[in-house]
């Protein structure tokens, strides 16, 4: 009730219907009313839509849950390539957690953080909330943190890693495109897949259109679709490797993004070989080269800087440079196969 009154007061003062979350962020995640109860169950409130993406960014094997909440009665505008246009007041949430034992989901999870992207009047902004030990609330932290995480993986091995919770500048590091913050996953090619809703399985684009949060979308068969890197049914080796590279690298390595100065563009749609790194001399890699001369040497993954950096756990060598502390073995293996199977158009001289 107090929140409601505060909200009303804000409306009267600033003359709008949406709290200024970015200008004056609440200290507690529960203030956003995204989840049932204390949020520990991650059950979305009415009007909060859970979703998944075809290929997801690797984050130290953390589990992720994604949600989107649009202001009542409003919808996002479909586009085939770019991030959907979303109304001001839209909130996108992603909760990161580790399973206690990946072999037995019934043992539950430890929630680490919930990251929000909020569409404010002056554009999108990012905020991070860190879950407390009791798992009853998450609190705002702009400066980031690290959490020693212990969990049991699918093979039954105990894993310990120093999970990095990003600061708000680091939100921008991945989400900046042409000097603006943009959501990454809310694009047709990432969302065009099925999702298990409580009422049954449905294609996400179809579902969003049906419940009125998306307008202008064609039949999902006519929408672009990225492969799931982990599912050979969804695409060829090339499709899957390129999907993995896009979602793990292209948020920085594409035109207009933070690492465009390197001249590398790892979007799945890129067709220029040198922009993909084939026989590309590294520009600012420093130690990151691992002693190799080119980003990608076709047929020779073991001599390709790209794979060397994916396989590294050293701070100035590892790529992506934020958001992971351990190697994504499955992704690296996929990229290794992809480079190994690449035909060499010319011989090294």
């Amino acid at each position: 009730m107090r929140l409601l009154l505060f909200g009303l007061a804000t409306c009267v003062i600033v003359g709008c219907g949406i709290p200024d979350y970015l200008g004056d962020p609440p200290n507690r995640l529960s203030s956003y009313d995204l989840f049932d109860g204390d949020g520990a169950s991650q059950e979305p409130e009415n009007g909060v839509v859970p979703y998944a993406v075809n290929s997801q960014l690797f984050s130290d094997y953390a589990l992720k849950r994604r949600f989107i909440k649009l202001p009542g009665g409003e919808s996002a505008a479909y586009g085939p390539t770019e991030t959907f246009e979303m109304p001001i007041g839209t909130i996108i949430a992603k909760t990161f957690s580790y399973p206690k034992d990946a072999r037995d989901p019934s043992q539950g999870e430890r929630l680490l953080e919930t990251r929000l992207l909020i569409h404010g009047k002056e554009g999108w902004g990012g905020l991070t909330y860190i879950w407390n030990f009791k798992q009853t609330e998450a609190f705002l932290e702009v400066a980031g943190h690290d959490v020693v995480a212990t969990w049991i993986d699918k093979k039954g091995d105990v894993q310990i890693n120093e999970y990095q919770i990003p600061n708000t500048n680091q939100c921008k590091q991945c989400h900046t495109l042409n000097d603006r913050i943009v959501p990454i996953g809310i694009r047709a090619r990432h969302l065009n897949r099925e999702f298990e809703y409580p009422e049954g399985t449905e294609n996400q684009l179809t579902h969003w259109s049906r419940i009125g949060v998306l307008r202008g979308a064609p039949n999902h068969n006519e929408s672009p679709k990225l492969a799931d890197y982990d599912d050979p049914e969804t695409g060829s080796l090339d499709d899957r490797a390129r999907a993995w590279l896009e979602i793990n690298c292209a948020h920085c390595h594409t035109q207009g993004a933070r690492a465009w100065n390197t001249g590398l563009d790892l979007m799945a749609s890129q067709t220029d070989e040198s922009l993909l790194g084939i026989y590309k001399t590294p520009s600012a890699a420093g130690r990151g080269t691992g002693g190799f001369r080119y980003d990608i040497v076709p047929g020779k993954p073991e001599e390709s800087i790209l794979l060397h950096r994916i396989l590294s756990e050293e701070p100035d060598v590892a790529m992506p440079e934020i958001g992971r502390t351990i190697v994504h073995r499955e992704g690296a293996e996929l990229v290794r196969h992809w480079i190994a199977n690449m035909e060499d158009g010319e011989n090294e001289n």
Partner: protein
Amino acid sequence: MKMMTGNWLIGFLLLTACDPGPQIIVPGRDVQREVQRALINAAPGDTVRFGEGIFLFRKTLSLDVENITITGAGPDKTILKFKDQVTGSGGEGLLVTKGGFTLENIAVEDSRGDAIKVSGVDGVSFKNVRVEWTQGPSPENGAYGLYPVESRNVLIEGCTAIGAADAGIYVGQCENIIVRNNTAKMNVAGIEVENSVGADVYDNVTTDNTAGMLVFKLPNLPKKESRQCRVFNNVITANNRPNFAKPGTLISGLPPGGGLILMATDEVEVFGNEIADNDTANLSILSFRSTKRKIKDKDFDPFCESIHIHDNTFSGGGTNPIGDLGEAIKAVFGNHGPDIVYDGSLDRKSLVDGRIPVESSVAIHDNGDASFANLDLAATAAGKEPSVTTDLAPHAHSLEALKPIHIDGVN
């Protein structure tokens, strides 16, 4: 946190108790988050002040607010140290992504990657900043010390860079640049300007690097141009340190003993410099082909054009030519290599009636008794016998002077 007593007092006396005055950050246990919070919460126009001491960080610090000044108590008194940087926290010591930024009177030491990267901004000044890898030269050091990239209106003055495994001061893909009064030593490259347009590099000292100063253009970068660079009144001496760059990097191919090297760049005016005792060659003018790397960039022009070398003082050097270039020098000159070495590579597309037009030529005049050689490396690369010449006559003309660089509020 400690308040500035003076300001407090004045604030108190004026009964405007609202403003506690500038706060100074001092070393402490949770300094990582304290500083990062200060950088995130800073308002445009603010100054973030560090007191004396060694500040230990485990993660990249980043700034994304316009018009911020970060200042310390001096480059030997305020030291931001990144020795224990952890994986997944960023690739550099300090990362700045908004313009109007000034960093002054401070040191950054032992970052795992680049020391200070400023990316994609308008307006960045480094003043009296030291960047250093304190273990001395090592391939395990970070690549760049001061590293503005894709930025415009860049000032670097009165700074010191020591131990970078690539370039101590590296200006990449920038426009409108002044680099003056700096010292770079014990780096692979002392000072490098790369794929940039409009730079005045003057009154710097580079010594004891693998190569003293580079003006380069590389392929496969978004910014395709490298031109309008004036290199003047610098002291570039005894850059003979063994190359300690990580193999694979372009810079790792540089032989020790390069004083000033121009590669694949256009419109460079080199004058008033003292270039001495660089043992491969005091000054070299090279095409990118000299790197023997593939060029997979159809827009890339690998040749040097419109190069103007005049009124410099050369002495010593050329006594121990090393590397591919060194071998070519040695084959003809033994341990008495010339001061100015030109690989003689010409862009056939630029030729008019079989000759390079004067305005695109390499002009060399009034450099005292400096010796010169055109090594004709294009012939060597094609497997032919090079026709090496020391005749300066084809280059003994002048070119129009390049315009000085002006940055608002700086000069």
